[in-house]
């Protein structure tokens, strides 16, 4: 694991919001918003892995996609510091400019089955962006693609085959090769290993780790599997209903979780030792609708230790240490 270097962050997300309008009726009146991401801020240092964890529907994936502008943001800003030149505000870049910056900011999708165009060969899928961004000429693109495929553990001949001829794990490697082709500096791994079975997961995780060192990548690793996250992350951000409730280094989150939600999440991780005494923090009820989140702390209705003030105002982030912040009224 790399220690995050102090200095200019690779990417700085502040106040990111993504609302999906809900429309009803014949005239499609705008009746409400689904607040999928509601004011999220974090930074990622070069070569650092920040994990975003949380339950299904908490806005992790939307957050990753919005920060790459694959979804148009509702509010907030993302500052990206390229290797050379001044920092860029991604959300105010013109479209053409944004396409150029995409070289540096790549994404690996969750579903290796649907994220590859079924009618293109693997060679074209990986090589297309190389040609578009004029990194390769038509002559040397085949060699570059072959190198990339070998690097992610596929046969160089794979480039003439179609995605459906590969297994899930192999396809995810194609997805990784595709993301790496442009020499990115940040890769958003959107549940990149969730669709794979456990033995393949381990292979792909190790591959991601090796590649991080080799290509000096920063990762935003979106996942719900805490053991995977612990293995890979430098820092972890816990999301609940569109907001970050706790963020800290991997050690801080796992050894010293402060937010009741983080504590509940961690207590739900099964132990390898069946004899170990489990002390699960049970959570009752479901995640409330992000269309109509509860007043005050969003977690209060399910929180085992909530108090009166929890339902009145949303808690601000408080610092537990220099790197550890938590949004809970009970933390002092």
């Amino acid at each position, binding site marked *: 694991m790399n220690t995050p270097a102090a200095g200019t962050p690779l990417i700085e997300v502040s106040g990111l919001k993504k609302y999906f309008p809900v429309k009803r009726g014949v005239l499609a009146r705008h009746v409400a918003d689904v607040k999928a991401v509601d004011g999220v801020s974090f930074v990622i240092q070069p070569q650092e892995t920040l994990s975003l964890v949380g339950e299904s529907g908490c806005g992790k994936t939307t957050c990753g996609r919005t920060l790459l502008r*694959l979804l148009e943001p509702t509010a907030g800003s993302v500052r990206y510091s390229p290797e050379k030149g001044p920092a860029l505000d991604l959300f105010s870049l013109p479209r053409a400019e944004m*396409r150029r910056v995409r070289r540096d900011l*790549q994404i690996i*999708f969750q579903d290796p089955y649907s994220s590859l165009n*079924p*009618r293109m060969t693997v060679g074209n899928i990986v090589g297309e*962006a190389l040609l*578009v961004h004029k990194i390769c000429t038509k002559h040397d693109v085949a060699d570059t693609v072959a190198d990339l495929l070998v690097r992610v553990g596929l046969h160089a001949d794979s480039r003439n085959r179609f995605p459906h001829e590969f297994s899930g794990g192999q396809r995810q490697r194609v997805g990784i090769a595709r993301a790496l082709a442009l020499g990115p500096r940040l890769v958003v791994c959107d549940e990149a290993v969730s669709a794979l079975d456990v033995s393949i997961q381990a292979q792909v995780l190790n591959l991601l780790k090796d590649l991080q060192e080799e290509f000096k990548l920063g990762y935003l690793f979106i996942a719900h599997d805490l053991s995977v996250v612990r293995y890979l992350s430098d820092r972890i951000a816990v999301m609940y209903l569109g907001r970050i409730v706790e963020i800290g280094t991997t050690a801080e989150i796992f050894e010293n979780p402060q937010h009741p939600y983080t504590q509940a999440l961690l207590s739900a991780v099964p132990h390898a030792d069946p004899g170990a005494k489990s002390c699960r923090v049970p959570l009752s009820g479901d995640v409330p609708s992000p269309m109509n989140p509860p007043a005050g702390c969003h977690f209060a209705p399910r929180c085992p230790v909530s108090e009166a003030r929890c339902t009145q105002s949303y808690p601000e982030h408080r610092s537990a240490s220099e790197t550890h912040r938590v949004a809970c009224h009970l933390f002092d």
Partner: protein
Amino acid sequence: MLNYIIRRLLWMIPTLFGITLLVFVSIRLAPGDPATVMMGVGSGGEMSEGSDFASRIAAFKRENGLDRNVFVQYLGFIGPFNIKPDGHELFGGSGKDPWSGLLALDLGTELQRSNVPILEELGRRLKVTLLLSFISILITYALSIPLGIFSATRQGTVLDGAVTVVLFLLFSIPTFWAGLMLILAFGQSGLGWLPVLGLESKDAANLSGLEALWDRGLHLIMPVMVYTYGSFAYLSRQMRVGMMDVIRQDYIRTARAKGLSERVVIFKHALRNSLIPVVTLFASVLPILIGGSVVVEYVFDIPGMGRYAYEGLVQRDYNIIMATTTFSAFATLIGILLSDITYALVDPRISYE
């Protein structure tokens, strides 16, 4: 692939037998027969007295082999033996003209005009229908693919809504009504801009090349419009749905993440995939292409395949009915085969090895 095609072609033989046998028997079970239609029975009975009439009907039936057992007649239709009085000796004929039927590539003559061989007439009619339907299919595809993309990429906007309403209107208008309205509007009784009947003017033979082409073009405008609007409405909706399905896919998001321009994303990644259902629809259009439209050809008095089938039915001309149905059954089977083959050609995930 070749093996697959040969296997499928062989399978078509029993299917075709089944279809033709069914049609052959059922038209003979239907009320009315060519002899009585021809002699005008039921239209007032002016000839219905005396044995003269009965004997003429019997003679007509004998001449055309219609007095034989229905399955013997079917054998005669399939061939290659001619079962008529001057046919093969095996069926009690004189042996003058032993071979006929489907296997001898001889579909006989029309029953009313016994000097008109059906195969030749079929060829003449097919040329007319193909001209009409090819132009119409071309226009349909040329308009509906861009329109489908247009509305799919503007899903949920006012423009998309307007296009949807217009297309549903078009789709719901019956062709015979549209045809008559066009005639009323642009024909002699209305603005008088366009000729109404047939494919060429009466004096077309005297026109020079360019004038004849112009004349033909004018005659085609209204039939082609009526022929096209329904399938245009249908196909654009198909295209829109196909495109919307594809745009939602993860690999489109992948394409955007690569930093491709919107034009490349839509026209290279999305269009190719959404064309699959539309291209294969083309194959299923083949029977319609060849079969023509009864309504359009009737309304505009165009001597094509559709009208030929209709005339055959009205005259109870078994030979015409059998010829047109066999032909369109064959076209349908070929169309289905072509559509399966195009699937394999356009989608690498499908293979028939």
